[in-house]
């Protein structure tokens, strides 16, 4: 219904414009502030109701003891005090930081490598680029289910292949052992993240003028020097943005863990998002779940500011202005 609104106002405007009395109404509608307000109205309403308000409500819920089916009362910092003494919560913070750091480093390194490979002259380049992006296109839950089967304790194809090759003697318990489970979920996350990093960095690589490389080669620069002093500085702005997005998505990841381990074994893979879900929805403790979600915000802000200022400083060092 709201979609129709600008349409009807415009119809009214043209109808009003025809009559003399309505002339002023028409010119008001041509005023950019009035029209700007009307054009922003649907989007702003939806975002205020379903984004800004829930964000504020979430912060408020963190200070209450709301449960499913029961209105909560204000309890001050009690939820946070409980979490402060909760070893599972701290384990989830540790897991989240570990997961984010390790996965992001690998996604960046492997993604950049793949981007550099794809930036060369290759046969079927467009086709290669298209299929490389597939892991990012396919819904995470559905590809995670495939990983679940690949990581199966008894019938894992990886275990089978490694045993056939004579590299290991016994099956790997991918998701049952804390260390293996962490490595496995991180590997699945890297698998899904590489294409995004690679394809966006490839777009950045293609904007670097070829003449820079030619000039550097004429001056006797080595391959490493060309990479270090041309590719990397020219790519820094886009690296900062891509990695900010990648860190944000990894830090708040939920789907992959929920499919593969549900936080187990013995909470070794619980991330803050999955712990928040578990406490709030199956556990019914909405207040405590919201407090965990709110506890993620400082980390997210830190990640955004870090990459933003990192980017600014780099630009300034390169002598760039914009």
């Amino acid at each position, binding site marked *: 219904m709201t979609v129709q609104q*600008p349409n009807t106002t*415009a119809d009214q405007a*043209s109808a009003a*414009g025809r009559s003399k009395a309505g002339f002023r109404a028409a010119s008001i*509608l041509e005023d*950019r502030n009035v*029209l*700007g307000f009307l*054009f*922003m109205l*649907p*989007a702003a309403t*939806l*975002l205020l109701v*379903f*984004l800004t*308000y*829930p*964000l504020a409500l*979430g912060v408020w819920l963190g200070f209450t003891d709301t449960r499913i089916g029961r209105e909560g009362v204000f309890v001050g910092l009690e939820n946070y005090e409980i979490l402060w003494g909760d070893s599972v919560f701290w384990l989830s913070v540790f897991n989240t930081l570990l997961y984010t750091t390790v996965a992001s480093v690998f996604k960046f390194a492997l993604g950049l490598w793949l981007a550099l490979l794809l930036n*060369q*002259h290759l046969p079927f380049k*467009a086709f*290669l*680029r*298209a299929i490389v*992006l*597939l892991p*990012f*296109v396919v*819904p*995470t839950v559905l*590809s995670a*289910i*495939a*990983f679940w*089967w690949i990581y199966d304790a008894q*019938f894992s*194809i990886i275990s089978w292949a490694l045993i056939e090759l004579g590299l290991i003697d016994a099956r790997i318990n991918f998701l049952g052992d804390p260390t293996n489970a962490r490595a496995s979920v991180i590997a699945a996350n890297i*698998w899904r993240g590489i294409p995004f990093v690679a394809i*966006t960095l490839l*777009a950045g690589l293609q904007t670097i003028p*070829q003449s820079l*490389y030619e000039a550097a*080669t004429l001056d*006797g620069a*080595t391959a*490493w020097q060309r990479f270090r002093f041309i590719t990397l500085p020219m790519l820094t702005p886009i690296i900062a*943005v891509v990695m900010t*997005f990648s860190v*944000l998505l990894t830090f*708040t990841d939920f789907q992959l863990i*929920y*499919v593969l381990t549900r936080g187990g074994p013995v909470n070794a893979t619980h991330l803050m998002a999955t712990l*928040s879900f578990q406490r709030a*929805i199956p556990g019914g403790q*909405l207040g405590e779940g919201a407090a965990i*979600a709110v506890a993620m915000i400082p980390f*997210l802000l830190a990640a*955004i500011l870090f990459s933003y200022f990192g980017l600014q400083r780099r630009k300034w060092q390169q002598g760039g202005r914009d």
Partner: protein
Amino acid sequence: MSSYARQDDSAGTVIKDNPHDSEGMRYLDSRLRRFVTTYLPLSVFVFVLLFPFYWMSITALKPNHQLTDYDNYSPFWVSEPTLRHIRYLLFETSYPNWFWNTIVISVAATFISLVFAVFAAYAIERLRFSGSRWVGLSIFLAYLVPPSILFIPLALIVFKLGLYDSPLALILTYPTFLMPFCTWLLMGYFRSIPYELEECALIDGASRWQILTKITLPLAVPGLISAGIFAFTLSWNEFIYALTFIASSENKTVPVGVLTELVRSDVYEWGSLMAGALLGSLPVVILYSFFVEHYVSSMTGAVKE
């Protein structure tokens, strides 16, 4: 590394006379080294990135007795492919329901997001009302708010609005992450359309509404397609809201349904699970294969400022 550099050095001195200088300095590389430095790592990447899909598809077609019998049947091939798992999904589970729900929800959420985003982006980028810069910035910040910190309060709101367990809950909440993205992308797109076109139309007496529908939008069609395709795949992919706001089996979406309804006992039905994952991926993959360029441009456009 140093021998590598030296060889490239000599390539560099020759390249001045080389007409194919778009080939760069790589054309003198020996075939073997090109194989080791480029084709080998590239094949490993492609193999690792695609293997899970191959494994998913082959498992979906294997009869049950071949699924786990690696001794008598090669695990990498299927000797008697069967459609039993797919038939089971289509006729003995609510899979067709989930599929239809996901289509309806994704199309509706994408449509709402696109329409709202067109107006918002046009207002911010072209009407330039006072404060439009700040509104643009807050749209970008909205884009960075992750669903995993919003789902708890949203669940309460959805419940109070009486939308719990209704597709409408998802149609109304998905635009919170689709619309900021679409707006951001379309702002960039509108910026690339010459302003002079609009000025001419304004002088000729066109209203803002006419300018938007007759000039800007037709020129922005590629941008609209990019934003729409990407938004559609994002809503198809969404999981945490669908898991939280929907309870009854027949209202679920494909990702939630496959995970919560097909996994019943300790004995996993791997064949039908993989068939469910495969069928659920097909729509986005087919859409993607037709619009690769649009998809890539919206993905890279989203991270450019």
